[in-house]
């Protein structure tokens, strides 16, 4: 019972079940948004609003934008930590990015978009290094450090804009090509989604194929034993926060252009919680040391498809939060009692 195939099923049993949930929600939405004037039943499903080009494009863009920062959060959660500052960071990054383009803040030099992106990424690395240093080296609790970030970064962004909006359309520097880069399409797919796929592959490599990933999982499970094995736990842990911060910056670029102006008081509100929810639903344990890229992606996607369902089917949008809450609660409850294992266990094995 130790063939590569059985290993695969055992390892991905949670993800498999989550994929079933995803398909169920998708079919539900397709069925209830079907085109009732179509000639045949199949035709009516194909012409459903869920499967319309506009909806799929919108949905994949959302999956891309939310997925990018959720992957970063996933890595931090796997390391045994948490990053509550992601949403506020996205507001700050968006604000700073637009200040680069407009040059309208006294302390921030204006510049064209290409160097602006570069400087923003560098800035996000610095933020990640700061988090990593405080948490991994100084050993402050991640919750406290990033909670301060949650308050501080948004407050900083609000202060910089005097609590008003800052818009992309006020840009004074060269923004040629920026819009098509971030909101346009590549091979007919939204740029955010393509970027997301690329980042997924990189994170998959990091987490599942590289030495770093093994160390990260080990660190999340048992930091002391990892240290006793000669692993530089401080560096590995700090690296998780750096990746999280950089991915938040990448995602922030897409969100800034998507909304076209950044209102720091609401931009990216609760995004850290969506990311945590997606990761936890996807099988990451908040105790650390557990989680897969596929799980995080599926978890995030399920949440967004649920949201999409509520919008398309005209359910009360306030109610979508309740549905989301119930799905997460149910998912974790099922995990708690390891029902995945019971479902996927062959019958003869159960008897033995």
């Amino acid at each position: 019972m130790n063939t590569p195939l059985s290993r695969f099923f055992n390892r991905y049993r949670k993800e498999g079940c989550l994929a079933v949930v995803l398909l169920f929600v998708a079919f539900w939405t397709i069925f209830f948004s079907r085109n009732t004037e179509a000639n045949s039943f199949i035709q009516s499903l194909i012409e459903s609003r869920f499967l319309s080009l506009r909806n799929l494009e919108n949905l994949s863009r959302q999956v891309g934008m939310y997925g990018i920062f959720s992957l970063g959060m996933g890595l931090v959660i796997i390391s045994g930590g948490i990053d509550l500052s992601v949403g506020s960071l996205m507001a700050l990054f968006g604000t700073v990015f637009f200040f680069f383009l407009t040059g309208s803040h006294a302390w921030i030099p204006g510049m064209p978009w290409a160097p602006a992106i570069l400087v923003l990424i560098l800035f996000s690395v610095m933020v990640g290094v700061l988090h990593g240093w405080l948490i991994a080296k100084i050993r402050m609790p991640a919750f406290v450090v990033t909670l301060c970030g949650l308050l501080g970064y948004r407050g900083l962004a609000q202060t910089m804009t005097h609590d008003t909006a800052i818009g992309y359309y006020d840009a004074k520097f060269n923004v040629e090509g920026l819009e098509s880069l971030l909101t346009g399409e590549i091979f007919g797919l939204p740029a955010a989604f393509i970027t997301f796929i690329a980042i997924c592959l990189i994170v998959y490599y990091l987490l599942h194929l590289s030495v770093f990933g093994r160390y990260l999982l080990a660190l999340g499970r048992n930091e002391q034993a990892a240290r006793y094995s000669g692993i530089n736990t401080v560096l590995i842990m700090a690296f998780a926060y750096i990746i999280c911060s950089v991915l938040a910056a990448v995602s922030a670029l897409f969100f800034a252009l998507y909304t076209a102006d950044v209102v720091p008081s609401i931009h990216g509100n609760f995004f850290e919680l969506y990311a945590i929810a997606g990761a936890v639903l996807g099988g990451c344990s908040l105790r650390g040391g557990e989680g897969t890229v596929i799980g995080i992606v599926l978890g995030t996607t399920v949440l967004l498809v649920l949201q999409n369902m509520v919008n398309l089917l005209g359910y009360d949008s306030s109610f979508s939060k309740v549905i989301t809450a119930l799905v997460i609660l149910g998912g974790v409850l099922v995990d708690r009692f390891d029902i995945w294992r019971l479902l996927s266990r062959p019958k003869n094995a159960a008897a033995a």
Partner: protein
Amino acid sequence: MPPILQLSQISKSFGFVQALSKVDFEIAAGEIVGLIGENGAGKSTLMKILGGVHPPSTGQIRFDKAPVTIQGAKAAEQLGISFVHQELNLLDNIDIAGNIFLAREPRRFGCIDQRALHKMALPILEALGLHLDPRTSVSRLTNGQQQLVEIAKALSMDAKLLILDEPTSSLSIQEADTLLKLVKKMKGQGMAIIFISHRLSEVEKIADRVVGLRDGENAGELNAEEISRDRMISMMIGRDLSEVYPESNPVNTETVFSVENFSTRRWPKGNASFSVRAGEILGMAGLVGAGRSELAQALFGVDSSPSGTMSVNGQPLTRGKVKNTIANGVFLAPEDRKASGLILEMTIRENMTLNSLSQFSRRSRIDFKSERIQTDKWLREFGVKAPNAELPVSSLSGGNQQKVVLSKWMTLAPKVMIFDEPTRGIDMGARQEIYQAIVRLAETGCAILMISSDMEELLGMSHRIAVMHEGTLSGILNRNEFSEKAIMTLAVQQSLATSAS
């Protein structure tokens, strides 16, 4: 004297597993019965039946001549059966008295009556010779004192039968001695005591009778005059044990590892200097808290140390840098294998290669195929009893877990290997395999430092024994000077000197 407890033909099965089959056992008031057996022999199942955790599948329990069924821990308590478990179950944010009477506190107006609580605790502590204020916080007690508080808890329930499950496993030699004396005293007061221990010398010292279990069945019984270490071992493993400790001699006299004036964070004024030769096993003895594990951790570099130098083959090493220490071939198999030696939820394979992953990777990518092939090989080489290396380490027994820890380091060709309590909580069969592995390693010319609280193990395995006292190395004994007394003299120094005067 009629037995206070009589178990007859007790059987217990879990599913298809027969944990106990037709076990007989009896004990009289004022008697100490040693219960011995390897891990998995059924000792704990039998005790769980007495504790009301599991009902027996068949068989009869008579307590005080009356047949009883014990359902739940409360029922056991009411009968007068008290347990002291291997692990300390104290709340260290509550004082001694509060722990003794936990959940049975005297109340006054719905609040805990602190004054009455402390008054009730005092005579029990006195009886145990524990001259401490009952208001002392448990966190400030030594392991030995905490174990005594556990016993106080058991005594406070008016126990007629006291079950001590490995009560000395976390105690120093001296503390264990105190405890044994106390147990004898309680026997004199008419209490029946079941004493479970892996430390056979203790059983030998204290038991009036020894009952052995093997594979869930009675394996025999020894009367007072028959009790001896050899007979106990052969009863436990079902065959004669000609030699537990393999013979070994240092291959040459070249010094590999030398440590000068080392101190630790816990004992910054301590001073340890010693050297280990190639192929030599240097045992390290001392009381719990003497700073042996701290020294090991400081040498390995996972803990910082204020002062000292060390060198391997004449080449000096930097203090406090694990990476550097490992690169120079100095490894540590730590004391607490579950907390620092292994990552329990990860697979055997992942644990075995965690410290040597660079060997199984090209640039940063892990080569899973060569990792699998190699770990399967190690699995067989070290005799880890598991069908394959893809199982989580948590599914293994203690002995097999320790073999994984050993294989993890021993395959890296150590120059210096530090073992901290290598056989704690491991049964005799697996112990022997570990001893053999250590000796084999020494024969390759590795210098070995073996910290142990098991006196027999130290005497049986070491070529020399270094003794620690309060962070300072108080002496090194050669083989011809070996004796329990000589070790104790060095280990307790001050306290002996003061008690003599």
